[in-house]
């Protein structure tokens, strides 16, 4: 602080007690993530999830890539083995939550209105509306969007990104921020591969590797059941690796380095 007049400016900018250059203020170094509050809330969520013994998986994709269908098939495939609950993010309607409940799992809907992504505070609110006793895996079905959700850590343990064969296999190259964040890439609607004709799963995998991402690439059809066993094995292994109350493996897997 300036000793001449007590202002927060630089004393050298003063003449006879008055700021000479009012255009120079006090620089305060912050070096925080731009989404500092969200990251703080996400860390709080992650601690909650781990204390409850949950594996939390954030599902992201473009709209219509088959997130809800994959969840329905997953709930059925895990029935009697692991208990699933779902936080559903959508701009409008409770339709997806109804589908999840019909498949036999608890679902809490977040309707975001015009917001194009979920954030950690929304997920925190939804988590407290959930009866998580006895739940093993909590899925967060993010808003269908390959851009915005990638920037927001929700407190998840793993990010799963879906790419349906009806989209281009070069999506990872077009949306590098999203696909770089993937801990697993699920190529979905595999039953349509032949009808589509020009989608090559290997090419999609190469585009993912070109983002320096070593994540497993699974080829799945929720409709025919192809690949569901590999997907269920991955979930079972990830759940077992978490253990109860073991937070040692916790890390923000959203691809961003936040100071």
């Amino acid at each position, binding site marked *: 602080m300036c000793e001449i007049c007590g202002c927060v400016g630089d004393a050298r900018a003063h003449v006879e007690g008055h700021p000479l250059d009012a255009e120079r203020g*006090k620089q305060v170094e912050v070096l925080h993530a731009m989404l500092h509050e969200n990251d703080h809330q996400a860390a709080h969520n992650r601690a909650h999830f781990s204390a409850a013994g949950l594996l939390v998986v954030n599902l992201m994709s473009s709209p219509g890539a088959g997130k809800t269908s994959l969840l329905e098939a997953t709930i059925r495939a895990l029935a009697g083995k692991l208990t699933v609950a779902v936080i559903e993010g959508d701009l409008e309607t409770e339709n997806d939550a109804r589908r999840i409940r019909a498949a036999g799992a608890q679902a809490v809907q977040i309707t975001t209105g015009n917001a194009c992504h979920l954030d950690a505070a929304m997920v925190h609110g939804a988590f407290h509306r959930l009866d998580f006793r006895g739940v093993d895996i909590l899925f967060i079905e993010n808003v269908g969007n390959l851009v915005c959700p990638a920037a927001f850590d929700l407190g998840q343990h793993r990010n799963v990104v879906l790419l349906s064969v009806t989209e281009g296999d070069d999506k990872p190259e077009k949306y*590098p921020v999203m696909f770089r964040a993937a801990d697993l890439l699920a190529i979905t609607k595999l039953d349509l591969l032949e009808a589509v004709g020009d989608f090559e799963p290997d090419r999609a995998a190469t585009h993912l590797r070109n983002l320096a991402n070593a994540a497993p690439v699974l080829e799945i059809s929720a409709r025919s059941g192809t690949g569901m066993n590999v997907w269920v094995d991955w979930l079972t292994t990830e759940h077992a690796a978490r253990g109860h109350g073991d937070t040692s493996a916790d890390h923000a897997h959203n691809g961003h380095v936040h100071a």
Partner: protein
Amino acid sequence: MHELAICESILRQALNLAEVHKACRVGRIVLTIGPLAGVEPHLLLHAFPLVAAGTVCEEALIEIETAAVRVECRICGASSGAQHNRLLCAACGTWRVVLVSGDEMLLRSVELFETLPSHQGNQVYV
């Protein structure tokens, strides 16, 4: 358009700082944004005045420093620049690299003023 949400987050941090330091005006807000942050600088510049209207950040100037995409090879050890959607080692071509720069989304610094700008004619100093 998550840039609006990001602007709100930056604004809250700047307003907190202004309150702590008893500043009545915020000048430059310096950000570092990498190409892999998923943030569009020009959208951020357009959105900030909308969220800052009516606050001490109303006249703040957003300054964006970009960060280069750089990778370090886990196979040959080379350090090189890369395209944001082709994170490959420039020396040996492998994708087995670690991103060392390029995904930054940092609020670096905030400039605080104790006085209102002179053109407003209501300086607090005598």
